[in-house]
């Protein structure tokens, strides 16, 4: 009997411990997960947490003190720059380790290792667009420069110092949830991070969709629907600027008419992981002649996916050579957007197309040879090994051609009967040392230093804004942009010979720029950089409306203060609706409307054109206009299984403003001839169905409809770590670009007075730990359009009461 009892209880016992200690039975190993000394409880940071720390390590040469202020912003005071980067790496790891690793795993196509087979397609896509290839090329170039290599080595050593001293109880909570361990940081991971940003900002491309649209519409109609030169264009560099004539005039290859513009077939591949086309930003700088203080004010708000932990981490870096403050990217050293004692700098995305596809003819399924310049050429096969959690890894063979990696071929999208293969030519693959730009900007003292710094940057193309205490303001659109003959790269190009390849880059000095213009300000908001007088072909995905509001305001403003600039960043005026609403109101047939439909029409009519959170008119307007857009274009464009992309909203608006009998108005699928009145009225009726439902769910107010949400990086898998239901105004095409989960990821206003008068805020918090008060404590301030005063701490401020904790590093 006693043997039986022992045996039964022993097996029960063993089973229990097994179940609680493994993820094979329950989705979590509840024993370790809930253990009070090891599990998630250790991540529940006390609200009176003590961050003070003394570290002795042989990795630093001198003494470095980090003063953490009440918002947990570190002020790093180092005796040399490399120690500062070591400490920055340590701090990034201490507060953001999981995110740094997750984002660089994502860049490298290694997410399946963490979440299992549901990410295989994502990972394959990352490998097949050559993300690791790109990062390796960049790293090679960065490590050739001793200063950059030293900065990266120091940063990496700092991250790894933290990882090596990390106990299992201190592991960030996401590791405990997903059940894995951090690996060593490397310089390659920093390069991968840069490439991930490059993909976010210069990875948007419409070659396949445009190729299909051209086939469906014909060339004349294609040009109408996909113009990137709006009548209302307000370019970054003002109209009327004179540009030098290029030395090289490019012409399309002889075969272009037959092989390029008159393509016989459509393409069924779609890019599943396109970056959000809303990725963009606002920046502007006003000169002292327009400000109350007489000094320039520089503003920047980059629009990205809003995530927790935030993409940004605020930091001050003080070395004997310079003193910089701003936001950094956990993953690379330095300050990315910010200011120093002499200058301020910021960025918006150029949005230019720097990504082209070439059709490749493989000899056979082995992908070992492809036809190029009348011969069979060897590809370079890169075997990608994709680790998958809980199961064995998979292999994927990516063929590299003279253009770049073959992203799409038979082996990738097998659900489609597609025989073709497409290679990717992308500036992100070119080797360059973009990190050097930030290292130099952090210490730049004047316009010349800024110019010398930005030359190092090849991608993603940015509008780099500058202001100095000495009174200069400037803006350059900077990157290496391919030289193109007219229309090159809009569509998929033949890849069987060299005639369609890029022939070089636009010389850097011919990138559009502006220094101290007479208008007293420079600005950019992802619009086309220049009008048609710029002598290069520059396709891209461009914003039209934000720049109009920004420029209209900046032109009128005088005696500007930082408060005026904050108000402008939070401006909700909808200039698109200002022009579009009259069309809706003038052409709707009011007598045919139901009471319900008339009610929505009234809401649009009475709307004050501001996308404010509590407004209902904006939701009705958007629903109505979108419905009109679909009414007018879907019949002409949508064909079964052929990927296309919607024309931009300015295309319809400007076409209707010019001509109320615009040729696309008629629905070609009906025998009747619809006119604009019929389409506008039917659009309202369709929109009303949706609006009725929204109203029933109490979602007719813009803020409720939009439901601004800052997701955790694990998105729907970790909703309790997100912040949902944030009531904000703004939206697409509005200066306050806050959408559902996208918008101003950092808002900054810097007045170049002495001392510097700086403000900033981002929708997150300095700690990446969901169990910390500092995880999301900035969100409320951000959501109501307020800012924190940025404390540019001085060497004599070490007893200031804003300092809450101190971490010091000394050589061992």
């Amino acid at each position, binding site marked *: 009997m*006693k*043997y039986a*009892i*022992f045996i039964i*209880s*022993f097996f*029960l*016992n063993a089973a*229990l*411990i097994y179940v*609680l*200690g493994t993820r094979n039975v329950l989705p*979590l190993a*509840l*024993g*370790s997960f*809930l*253990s*009070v*000394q*090891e*599990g*998630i*409880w*250790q*991540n*529940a*940071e*006390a*609200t*009176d947490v003590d961050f003070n720390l003394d570290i002795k390590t042989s990795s630093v040469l001198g003494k470095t003190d980090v003063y953490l202020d009440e918002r947990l912003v570190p002020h790093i005071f180092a005796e040399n720059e490399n120690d500062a980067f070591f400490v920055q790496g340590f701090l990034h790891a201490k507060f953001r380790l999981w995110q740094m690793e997750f984002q660089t795993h994502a860049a490298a196509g290694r997410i399946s290792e963490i979440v299992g087979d549901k990410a295989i397609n994502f990972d394959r896509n990352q490998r097949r667009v050559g993300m690791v290839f790109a990062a390796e090329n960049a790293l090679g170039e960065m490590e050739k420069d001793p200063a950059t290599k030293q900065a990266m080595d120091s940063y990496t050593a700092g991250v790894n110092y933290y990882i090596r001293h990390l106990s*299992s109880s201190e592991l960030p*909570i996401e590791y405990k*949830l997903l059940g894995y361990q951090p690996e060593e940081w490397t310089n390659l991971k920093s390069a991968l991070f840069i490439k991930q940003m490059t993909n976010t900002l210069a990875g948007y491309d419409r070659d396949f969709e445009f190729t299909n649209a051209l086939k469906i519409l014909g060339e004349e109609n294609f040009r109408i629907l996909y113009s990137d030169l709006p009548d209302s264009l307000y370019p970054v560099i003002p109209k009327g600027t004179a540009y030098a004539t290029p030395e090289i005039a490019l012409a399309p290859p002889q075969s272009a008419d037959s092989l390029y513009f008159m393509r016989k077939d459509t393409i069924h591949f779609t890019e599943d992981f396109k970056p959000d086309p809303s990725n963009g930003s606002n920046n502007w700088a006003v000169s002292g002649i327009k400000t109350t203080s007489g000094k320039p004010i520089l503003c920047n708000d980059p629009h990205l996916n809003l995530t927790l932990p935030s993409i940004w981490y605020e930091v001050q870096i003080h070395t004997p050579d310079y003193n910089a403050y701003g936001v950094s990217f956990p993953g690379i050293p330095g300050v990315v957007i910010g200011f120093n004692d002499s200058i301020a700098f910021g960025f918006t995305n150029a949005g230019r197309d720097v990504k082209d596809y070439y059709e490749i003819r493989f000899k056979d399924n082995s992908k070992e040879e492809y036809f190029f310049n009348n011969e069979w050429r060897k590809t370079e096969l890169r075997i990608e090994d994709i680790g998958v959690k809980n199961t064995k890894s998979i292999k994927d063979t990516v063929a590299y051609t003279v253009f770049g990696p073959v992203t799409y071929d038979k082996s990738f999208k097998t659900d489609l009967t597609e025989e073709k293969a497409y290679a990717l030519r992308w500036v992100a693959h070119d080797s360059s040392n973009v990190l050097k730009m930030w290292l130099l900007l952090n210490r730049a003292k004047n316009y010349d230093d800024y110019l010398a710094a930005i030359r190092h940057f090849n991608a993603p193309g940015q509008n780099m804004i500058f202001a100095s205490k000495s009174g200069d303001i400037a803006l350059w659109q900077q990157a290496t942009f391919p030289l193109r003959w007219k229309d090159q790269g809009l569509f998929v190009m033949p890849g069987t010979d060299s005639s369609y390849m890029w022939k070089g880059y636009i010389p850097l000095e011919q990138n559009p720029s502006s220094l101290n213009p007479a208008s007293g300000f420079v600005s950019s908001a992802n619009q086309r950089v220049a009008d048609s007088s710029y002598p290069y072909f520059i396709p891209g995905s461009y914003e039209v409306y934000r720049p109009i509001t920004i420029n209209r305001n900046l032109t009128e403003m005088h005696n500007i203060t930082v408060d005026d600039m904050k108000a402008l960043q939070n401006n909700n005026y909808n200039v698109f609706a200002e022009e579009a609403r009259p069309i809706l109101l003038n052409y709707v047939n009011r007598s045919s409307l139901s009471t319900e439909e008339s009610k929505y029409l009234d809401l649009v009519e009475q709307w004050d054109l501001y996308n404010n959170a509590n407004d209902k008119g904006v939701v009705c307007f958007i629903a109505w206009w979108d419905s009109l857009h679909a009414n007018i274009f879907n019949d002409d464009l949508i064909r079964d299984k052929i990927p296309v992309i919607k024309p931009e909203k300015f295309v319809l608006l400007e076409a209707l403003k010019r001509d109320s009998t615009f040729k696309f108005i008629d629905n070609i699928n009906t025998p009747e001839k619809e006119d604009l009145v019929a389409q506008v009225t039917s659009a309202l009726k369709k929109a009303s169905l949706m609006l009725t439902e929204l109203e029933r769910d109490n979602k007719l107010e813009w803020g409720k409809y939009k439901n601004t949400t800052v997701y955790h990086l694990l998105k729907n898998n*970790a*909703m*309790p*770590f997100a912040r949902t239901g944030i009531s904000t105004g703004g939206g697409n095409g509005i200066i306050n670009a806050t959408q559902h989960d996208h918008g101003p990821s950092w808002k900054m206003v810097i007045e170049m007075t002495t001392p510097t008068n700086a403000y900033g805020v981002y929708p997150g918090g300095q700690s990446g730990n*969901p*169990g*910390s*008060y500092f*995880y999301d404590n900035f969100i409320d301030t951000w959501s109501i359009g307020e800012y924190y005063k940025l404390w540019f701490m001085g060497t004599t401020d070490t007893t200031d009461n804003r300092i809450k904790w101190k971490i010091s590093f000394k050589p061992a």
Partner: protein
Amino acid sequence: MKFIVSAIITASLAFSLGLFLPWWSVAIAAFLSGFFIPQQKILAFLSAFIGVFVFWGGLAFYISFANNHILAQKIAMLIIKNNNPFMLIALTALIGGITAGITAFTARSMALLFKK
């Protein structure tokens, strides 16, 4: 009395071992107290259960209170679809307690095998 002492010993051992061993150190603690403290098997179970239940539950509460329950609410929502932090604290205590209880029971049963 022995029951209470046994519970306290189990909890103290679990705490000490937990400083340098993973979560299953509660099982080691319960095994040691169960094996060496002679009492009825059911009392061995109960004393270890209560000892670790109070230790894990108490420490979890202490940590969570100091944290304003920020994390416990999120984790509770994530794994039991209920944002009540006390549910998570109770679940924690229960898991620690049961692990310890059953192990003490097993250890006692084993000790009895050696008894003539």
